[in-house]
């Protein structure tokens, strides 16, 4: 089998026509020479002319062959040698891929990787072409290395990034670079900790490369896998308001025995330290923002092998007040209104209206709609469904208006059913542990005396929604669920006189508050991003171009998206708070954190890797490159010698 290394050189075969043309032209250009007498020449001519023709043809043939062989030689025809050769003689093109993703920042891991690079370089020896590619989830650096000095300089300047890992990407890049090389032996060596998340879709890329006769070696760098990292956070209540005590829960993941400290910083100032232990895995910090506005902070832990993921950044918005719309008759809801009146505990902005006024109100301006003993039909129903459709929450307090609504559908599938076996008596209330957030922590403490609900002697409420408080006989006393995309809690405490005394109980105000904050429309959460992801943030503000201040205090202008509605900041290489300044005087903190999967240190061993990529070879165990094989022999010198022979023969014949 013949393979041409530079087939495009064959276009040079056109050169072979040159001698032919010159030959033909040359024939016409024979010099004329006057001579005294042709007597003698004519006698000799007969034998001479035959020889001349033969000589001309031979010369032409030699000149064509000379150019043909030159051209073929320079196209480097390669044939496989039938004889195995020793590897040291073979020229090699090697791409060494070194992982500089965050997980390689584990204690000592990066140094091990660099050591492996140096070892590999030494084994390869001189005369080989080596491309070093540093990668994370992108190509960080790439350079062709010639000597150890260059290698040392390259490795010294290499830094671990906060980014994730994507091994198929550098594989593809290395493949393209190697295919451009002229060597006959091509190899890729991957030096990484081989996280599972970095190997997505690697099989297809690997197989394509293998088909192109490129050998792939792997060096699995192993290290201490003890790690602490944050997988997220949450805030309670989810509707932060000024003066409201907030609980901030960091989600700390640990595979370390013993306790781990967690610190919280707000605006760079440490606000508290908690210890997460194996028994007490959930820790929280309480903060009480005094002013509305954007808030940002971070958690910090320490004591593991990977320091780079020990900080976690967050930001949230504290709204000035919570807007509640209470619809009902003024003489009926007074105690509920009093419970929600501003100034008592939290800044609630309460608006009360009669049902008849509802059409004139835009409910979307409110965070919560309370329907107090108001029948849901006609325009009330339309407004309520619209409010729910926009993700709003509705607290539906049933009162005596509904005693006449027996066997009627109140809303959706909720209807009142009359009991045929009505029994008088008292019922013990039962809180059902459904994970319903507003009731967490109450248990039965505050409700145990509330059992005399006469309504339920004769009627009950049927619904597919979840019952979260029920009487002992199974009648639902509070049901909750999602209707039309919004949340709804049905609470029939005003249905009879005994139940109507609930507001007098100590539990009432906190329960109402719980329900209020549960149902209130949550403020739009500030977007959070991961390293490497572009920050995309909408801004309707016209005028001056917004600005980002990066965690390292550098300033950078975002670009406007194609739709001109969003601003995009690319290149989030550092974790931290990115300050988005849409206009002077306004700052929106955007938290950017490292990727969780990069912190998990979910790595695979070489044996596991071999199951995934069957003929991958272990780089660290071999001593030389490569041990044996068949060699492509370049016929360049052969053809050049042939062409020189043609040239020599031509010169000899020419002078004969």
């Amino acid at each position: 089998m013949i393979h041409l290394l530079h087939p495009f050189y064959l276009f040079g075969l056109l050169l072979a026509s040159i001698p032919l043309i010159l030959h033909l032209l040359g024939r016409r250009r024979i010099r004329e020479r006057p001579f005294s007498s042709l007597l003698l020449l004519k006698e000799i001519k007969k034998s001479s002319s035959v020889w001349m023709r033969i000589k001309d043809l031979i010369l032409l043939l030699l000149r064509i062959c000379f150019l043909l062989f030159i051209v073929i030689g320079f196209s480097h025809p390669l044939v496989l040698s039938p004889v195995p050769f020793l590897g040291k003689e073979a020229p090699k093109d090697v791409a060494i891929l070194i992982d500089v993703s965050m997980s390689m920042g584990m204690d000592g891991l990066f140094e091990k990787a660099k050591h492996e690079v140096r070892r590999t370089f030494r084994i390869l020896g001189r005369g080989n072409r080596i491309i070093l590619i540093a990668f994370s989830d992108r190509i960080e650096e790439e350079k062709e290395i010639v000597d150890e000095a260059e290698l040392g300089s390259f490795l010294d300047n290499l830094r671990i990034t906060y980014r994730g890992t994507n091994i198929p990407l550098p594989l593809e890049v290395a493949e393209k670079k190697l295919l451009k090389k002229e060597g006959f032996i091509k190899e890729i060596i991957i030096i990484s900790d081989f996280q599972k998340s970095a190997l997505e879709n690697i099989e297809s890329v690997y197989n394509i490369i293998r088909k192109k006769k490129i050998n792939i070696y792997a060096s699995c760098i192993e290290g201490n896998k003890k790690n602490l990292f944050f997988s997220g956070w949450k805030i309670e209540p989810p509707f932060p308001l000024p003066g409201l005590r907030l609980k901030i829960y960091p989600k700390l993941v640990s595979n370390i025995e013993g306790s781990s400290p967690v610190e919280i910083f707000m605006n760079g100032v440490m606000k508290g330290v908690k210890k997460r232990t194996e028994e007490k895995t959930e820790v929280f910090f309480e903060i009480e923002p005094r002013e509305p506005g954007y808030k940002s902070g971070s958690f910090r832990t320490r004591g593991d092998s990977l320091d780079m993921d020990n900080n976690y950044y967050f930001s949230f918005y504290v709204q000035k007040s919570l807007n509640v719309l209470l619809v009902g008759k003024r003489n009926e809801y007074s105690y509920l209104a009093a419970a929600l009146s501003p100034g008592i505990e939290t800044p609630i902005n309460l608006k009360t209206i009669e049902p008849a006024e509802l059409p004139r109100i835009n409910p979307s301006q409110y965070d919560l709609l309370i329907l107090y003993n108001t029948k849901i039909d006609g325009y009330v129903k339309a407004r309520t469904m619209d409010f729910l459709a926009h993700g709003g929450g509705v607290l539906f307090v049933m009162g005596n208006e509904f005693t006449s609504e027996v066997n009627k559908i109140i809303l959706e599938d909720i209807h009142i059913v009359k009991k045929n076996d009505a029994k008088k008596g008292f019922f013990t209330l039962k809180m059902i542990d459904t994970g319903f957030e507003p009731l967490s922590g109450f248990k039965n403490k505050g409700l145990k005396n509330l059992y005399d609900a006469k309504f339920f002697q004769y009627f009950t409420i049927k619904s597919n929604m979840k019952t979260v408080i029920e009487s002992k006989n199974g009648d639902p006393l509070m049901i909750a669920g999602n209707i039309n995309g919004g949340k709804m809690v049905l609470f029939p405490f005003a249905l009879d006189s005994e139940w109507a005394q609930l507001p007098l109980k100590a539990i009432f105000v906190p329960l109402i508050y719980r329900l209020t904050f549960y149902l209130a429309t949550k403020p739009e959460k500030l977007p959070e991003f991961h390293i490497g992801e572009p920050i995309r943030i909408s801004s309707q503000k016209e005028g001056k171009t917004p600005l980002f201040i990066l965690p390292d205090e550098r300033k950078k202008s975002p670009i406007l998206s194609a739709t001109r509605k969003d601003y995009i900041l690319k290149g989030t290489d550092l974790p931290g708070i990115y300050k988005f300044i849409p206009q002077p005087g306004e700052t929106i903190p955007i938290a950017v954190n490292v990727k969780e999967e990069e912190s998990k240190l979910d790595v695979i061993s070489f044996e596991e890797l071999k199951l995934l990529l069957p003929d991958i070879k272990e780089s660290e165990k071999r001593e030389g490159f490569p041990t044996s094989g068949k060699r492509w022999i370049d016929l360049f010198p052969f053809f050049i010698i042939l062409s020189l022979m043609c040239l020599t023969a031509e010169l000899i014949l020419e002078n004969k």
Partner: protein
Amino acid sequence: MRHIDRSYIRYLDPKVISKLKGLDLIARMVVEGFLIGLHRSPYHGFSVEFAEHREYRPGDELRYVDWKVFGKTDRYYVKVFEEETNLKAYLIIDKSGSMGFSSNGISKLEYVKYLASALSFLLLRQKDAVGLLLFSKGLDSYIAPSSRKNHLNMLLKELDQLKPGGETSLSTVLFELAEKIKRRGLIILFSDLFDDYENVVKSLKIFRHKKNEVLVFHTLDSAEILFPFTGDMLFRDMETNDKITIDPKSIRKDYREKIENLLTSYKRDFRNASIDYQFLRTDTAYDKALLSYLAKRKKMK
């Protein structure tokens, strides 16, 4: 002490001669140069009949010094002899196109012109009658032999106007001339002899048959002998305009062999026919030709 002015000798070189203007000058220079070079030679062209005395000049032989005069005048005089002669010499020059061939700046015809001029001068100086015949395909010009003093001018004028041209028909012309020349004399032929070999030899034999002395100056250019050309060439015959394409390298060896054979044959056959044959290359000095003439002249005494 004798002093010989050797500057004259250089005029025996055709290249030097060709730079001079005027055939009379050329003839004189050649002959003077030749004679000066002859002082030790066994040949001398001086006649036996005393003509006059003249002052001794370097190069003159001592045996011709008149010691009696020296005894009387105390000065050296040499005796100058004048030969009584009735020799008629015919200079027959081939002026065909082939004689115009030149590879070194001097064509064969030019070479012959200078040589004929010198010979005319020398012959007339010895009171021999000199005639001139120019031919190519036929006889083109004829000047009857004479030994008058102004005859040299006529000869040189004719030679001066000599231009190569026409085809050679050497044997035909020689046959014709053999009929024309009644009185025996010295026939001096200048030609490249590019004609049918046998006819040439045969025609010259007729001259011998008629008791003429024949001297042939076979004149060729060095390129005609060595054939030094390279590269494919189209050779054009200077007489017939025939053309032939040849790679000179491929035939050089054969050509040289053939021309060598031709020269050898001429030499052999002329010797057998008692014809004096002198081969001349246009780059050889004239003394060779003049010596062969003198040798011939002496033989005729």
